[in-house]
Each structure stands twice: as C-alpha cells, then as structure tokens.
C-alpha cells in the first residue's frame, strides 16, 4: 500500500482472459435468474387462474421477485463500474455573508411587522383563540367519563344472575370445584359486568372478608371477572389451589381470601358481588360489586 493513497479507481473491464470467462458465467447466471423469474410469474398467473393456493402463490411470487433481484445484483456487482470515488463535503453551514444577508432581508421585512405592536398582539391573540376553539370538537369523540366506571348494571339489584344465553342459575347447577361466568339478567353484553361464580369445597378454608359473611350462597362466591391490573378476564381457575390466574400478566388471586392478589402486578383484590337466593331458588345479586371493577384510575377511590 503506497503512502499517499487516493481512492483507487479501476476500469470496468480488465484485459485478462480469466476475467472474461468469469464474466460470461456471471452473465449466464444472471440471465438464467431473469428467465426463472419469468417462468415463476407465468406459473403464478396460472395458479391464480386455477383457484389460488397460498403456499404456491407465496413461493412463486418469491421466485419472481427473487429472480429479478438476484439478476440485478449480479449485473451490478460484476458488470457495472465499481470504482471507488470521493466526493467533497462542502461546509454545511452557510457562509457568514449569506447569513448576514438573510438576517438583513428578514429584518427589513420584519420591521414593518414588528413595529405595529398592537396589531401583532391582537392578531396573535386571535390565532391562539382560534386554535383553542378548534380543539373543542375533540370533545365529541366520547362521553364524559362518569359513574359508568364505578358502577355496573348490578346497581339494579336485586337482580338475577344469568349465563350468556340468558338462563338463570340455581346453586345445584354448579358442581363443587366448578366455575361459570354470569351476567346480570338483561345485560349479558355489558363488558364490565362479567362475573365469576365459583363453588369452593366446604373444607377448603374459605374466609369471608369482614362484613361479607352473608355474601355467599351454598359455598358459591362471586367475583368480578375483570382483572384489577389491566382488565383482562381472569379465566383460569385452579380448583385445587383455590387460585384465580390471569393469563395476561400472571396476576394471581386467592379465592379463599376475598380474591386478594398473591402474586403478579395486580394491586387490588377482585371486587366481590353479594349473592342471595330469590323465592324460586335462583341466585341473585343483592347489590353492586364491593368496589369499581377492572383496572384502576385516578379518582377510583372517590
């Protein structure tokens, strides 16, 4: 390598026979790639015309595109000039004169603007007011967040609980160690009212929370199905352990102890629903959940 090295330059064609030979091979390969691409494109059209098949479509499209791509790259690498050239970087910053000229021109124009302070101030105020006014249609995007976040249709208690098809539930419908999802009657499409009914074993060590001793019916307890972390339905009931596991982020709730969180990111227990039996022996809710359901928000506690 010589001392003072400018980027080397080569001509596109060498004069040696090895290079010629290699060149012909590459040319044939490249041309073959284009031919493969053409055939694949035709095959793709045929496949499509015959009814289509996803794997064939994908592979044939890949062959078409890939054939063209390989052909072009071979062409570029072997037949296009690969000289290394240098280009100067001129200073990006404008020269001092240019900046001065700009400043002078801008100041000249601005003087007629800037001197009229009252105009500038009132015009600015008007534009700002317009900007603020134009934000107001954003308000139409959604309703004011209201009591809906803190209440569910169970506020119409006493109300029967029903399965998704609308059929009410008797305690005998639920086996020991069984669980089902229920809603308040007439509100099976209320996303915030999904409720878990769980029948625990009598000897499983259920400890009712203070003040909720009569919230269960025949060893059946009801909790909100919405995780208090980010609201995924807590659909995993591990019957032997008495634990509810949320599959989204692994929050775990102890059914025997008021569904308090025992692992994972959830910080609050699943709200509990008070249950009783009506005169026909169906399970009813006697009030709304013990706390707002689902994930937390700023004023949840107010």
């Amino acid at each position, binding site marked *: 390598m010589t001392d003072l090295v400018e980027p080397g330059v080569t001509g596109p064609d060498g004069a040696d026979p090895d290079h010629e030979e290699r060149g012909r091979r590459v040319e044939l390969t490249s041309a073959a790639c284009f031919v493969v691409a053409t055939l694949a494109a035709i095959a793709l059209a045929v496949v499509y015309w015959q009814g289509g098949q996803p794997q064939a479509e994908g592979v044939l499209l890949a062959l078409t595109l890939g054939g063209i791509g390989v052909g*072009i790259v071979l062409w570029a690498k072997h037949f296009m000039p690969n000289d290394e050239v240098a*280009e100067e970087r001129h200073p990006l910053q404008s020269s001092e004169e240019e900046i001065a000229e700009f400043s002078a021109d801008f100041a000249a124009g601005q003087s007629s603007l800037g001197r009229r302070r009252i105009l500038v101030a009132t015009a600015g105020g008007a534009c700002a007011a317009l900007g603020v006014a134009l934000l107001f249609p954003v308000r139409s995007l959604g309703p004011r967040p209201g009591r809906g976040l803190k209440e569910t249709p169970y506020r119409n208690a006493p109300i029967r609980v029903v399965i998704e098809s609308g059929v009410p539930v008797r305690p005998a419908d639920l086996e020991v160690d069984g669980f089902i999802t229920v809603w308040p009657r007439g509100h099976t499409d209320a996303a915030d009212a999904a409720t878990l009914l769980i029948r625990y074993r009598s000897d499983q060590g259920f400890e009712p929370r203070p003040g909720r001793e009569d919230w269960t019916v025949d060893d059946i307890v009801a909790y909100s199905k919405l995780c208090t972390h980010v609201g995924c339905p807590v659909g995993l009931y591990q019957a032997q352990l008495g634990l509810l596991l949320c599959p989204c982020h692994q929050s775990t709730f102890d059914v025997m102890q008021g569904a308090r969180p025992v692992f994972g990111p959830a910080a609050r227990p699943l709200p509990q629903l008070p249950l009783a039996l009506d005169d026909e022996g169906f399970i009813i809710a006697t009030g709304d959940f013990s706390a707002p359901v689902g994930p937390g*928000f700023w004023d949840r506690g107010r």
Partner: protein
Amino acid sequence: MSDAPAPETPRRRRGPEHLLTHRLARWVDSRLGTAKLARTTLNKVFPDHWSFMLGELGLYCFIVLVLTGVYLTFFFDPSLNQVIYRGSYAPLRGVEMTEAFRSALELSFDVRAGLVMRQIHHWAALLFLASLGVHLARVFFTGAFRRPRELNWIIGCTLLILAMLNGLFGYSLLDDQLSGTGLRIVYSITLSIPLVGTWLASLLFGGEFPGPDIISRLYVIHILLVPAVIVGLLTAHLAILVRQKHTHFSGPGRREDNVVGERMWPTYAAKALGLFFLTSALLAFLGGVFQINPIWIYGPFDPAEVSAASQPDWYMGWLDGALRIMPGWEIRAFGFEIPNPFFPGVLLAGLTFGLLYAWPFLEARVTRDHAEHHLLDRPRQRPVRTALGMATISFYSVLFLGGAADVLAATFGLSVNAILWTFRFLCLLAPPVVGWVTYRLCKELSARDGVPTASTVTVREIPGRLRHREEPKQAEPESQALRS
C-alpha cells in the same frame, strides 16, 4: 450541439439523443430545468458498507406494507355491526361476530390471494420493526447521530414510534380475541394516566371499553394518518441524508471532509433496486410459507374471554414484559391513586423514548464534543457508549423475555412465578454486568488493534491522510473497516 455522433462510437449506431429516455428527459428538462440537479444526483457518492443498507430494508418493508395494505383495504370492513358468519370456514359457521372479523375471515378464506396478501402484510410489519431496530443499533453504535445528524436521529426515533403504533393498530383492526385483549390493555394503560386518563380513554374509545367506535377510528389512523406522517418524515429523513451526505468509516482516503464510495448511477441504484426485489422476495416467501396470526383459531373478540399465552406482536413485547415483571405496587392517597400499569406502561415507555430522543444531546454534553462528525466510530473505539448501549439492550431483552414468561414456563416445564421473580432481579443485575463485560471487551480489542480508544485520544479532528502518513502500520484496522 451537433448531431454528429461522438468520435469513439461506431458510425453505424445513432447517438444517444434519439433514445426514448433521452427524449423524455429533454421534454421534462425544457419545462423544469432538471438536468443539472439530475446530474448531481446521478453522481452522488454513497459509501457502500453493508451496514449502511439496514435503513433501506426498513424502507422496502414499508413499500411492501403500503402495496399489500392498499389491496387489503379493498376487502376489509372496519364495522362493529354484529353478523352471523356464513363463509367457508366450517368451525365458525353460525357464530356471531363483528363485520370487521367477518371481512377478515372472508379475506383469508374466500378471496383468492387474500390470505397470502394478509400474511405478507403482517410479516412485512414484523420485519419493518426489526429492520428499524438493527438500523437504530448501527446508527447508535457507530455514532452516526452526532452533529450534524441529530435532526435525522429525532426523525428516525419518531418513525420508530409511528411504526410501532401503526403495527399495533393494524393487527387490532381484525377484532379477534388476541388483538381485542391487547386493545383492552391499551385502554387500561390510558386509563391509568393521572388526572386525564379517564378522559383520554373515553375520547379515544368513544366511551367505556370496548365502545362502538374504536375499530373504525383505528382504521383511519392506520391506513391514512400514520402512513401519511411516515411518508412525510421518511422523505425528510432521506432528503437530509442526501443533503448532508452519508457518513463513512475511516479508511484509505477517507476523511471528515469527503465521502468515499460508489456513484449512485448506475451501481448504487442497481444494488438498491436489487435489494428491494430480494427483500420483497423474502417477504413473499414468508407470507406464503409461514402461517401468521391465524385469527380463525383465536375466534372473534369477546371481552369476557381470553386465551392462555396472549402476547402482543414482538415489538410490543418489552412493554408486555414490563407489565408482567412489575410488582403489584400502587400509590394511593386521599381517594386518588396512580394505578400499577402507569409505571411500566406509561412512565417506562416515556423514559425509554425520552432517553432515545435525548441521546445525541446527552452524549455531546458529556463528552463536550460539539464538532461535526462524518467519520464513523467502530464500536470498540467508544467503550463507554458501546457498553451503555449493550447494557440497555440487555435490560430490554430481559423485558422481552418477561413478556414470554408463561410460554417459557409451559415449554420448559418451569414455574412461571419463579421465572418472573428471576426476571425482576435480572432486569436490574444484567445491565451492569453486560455493560462491564462490554467495556472490558472494547478496551481489549482496541488494545490489540493498537488503536487508542476515544477516551485516550485528545485530538479529534485528525485528517485521515495525515494519520496514514504518520502511522503506516494502520493498514489492519482500515481494511477491517472495509471488509466488515
């Protein structure tokens, strides 16, 4: 301008002026005066190191996304009206679902080439984000974000965020069980923002979750608003790149005041075109051969149901992992609260992108280096930056693994609780360890090269030619820069 052919071309051929392309160029030029600019463009020099082509990969993925996406818009219907499915997929026949989900099923089963288009679109989205990730890493580890390229770094970070959001919104359009669960999480994280969270969530979703509007709103955002902004920012990104010229590694003849490489025309343009075709070929192959997002298995979204192993697409995995690893802490006082998801979902995300945006300015301030740089660093020459970068990557890698905790547990027969506890400690312990090891490695490699690291060199602006003359044994690192 004579019509006689130039002396060296054979007389039997007409001169280039008669080619169609030439006549076309003259037609345009006589109206716009483009010849000078066009010539400048043709002769633009682009350094051709392989690592400079990573950003292009993102660009080509984006082009494929737009092309396949337009096709999909002709069939997809973002309506939340309830319908009964009567299409050709038997296990869902008679099931009630939204029009959005139904149209996605129709696209997958009853539209010719519909499924392959959908799958190419989704694979392209995954690879778009992956390309941006490797491109970001290359720019970071070589110091290409330094002055005068801070603006392009900011544009790039914005493109990254927009790409992530558009991917999230895109796969949520289908209203299947998996993506609907993801939207629920988006809603709840929005809800967790202090003071304004409940308002933001209600305005975005048109009410309480799920709300009647979210899919149609996300549709407009996904096909129009975000792509428009991406196109604008991409154009600016490339324009700035052309104006400032690309950076290059040091090597023979390479200095701060020049750029060495190959000309745009024809070689660089041909290689770029070839890479576009090859990238599209790979995406087409993936789209046909590897099944992705089988929404017919997930079923239509029901807010009371969820599947085990629910994860977002890979690029959101760090956020999902952060949500899982975070212990159950909340702040509550006077009836107000900052709920748990705020910390990993909003605070961590904000810190992540805030630091990302601020990095060029932070580094310039700490190193007191406000000079222009057009020569790139080799990562080993900047051990502190490289170590910090690797430490950061290790932190987010632990978060990514955290997002897969339940799948890891099920696959390897481990306790998911133990895995999450391990990651809680690992996300704090791994970064310093990885950072330290990286630092030592950089120092070691530099010592072997005989090239001093940035921390031991006091003079920055050494023209390449001068250095070459003074230390003739520099051949090795430069040719390595060329070869790697």
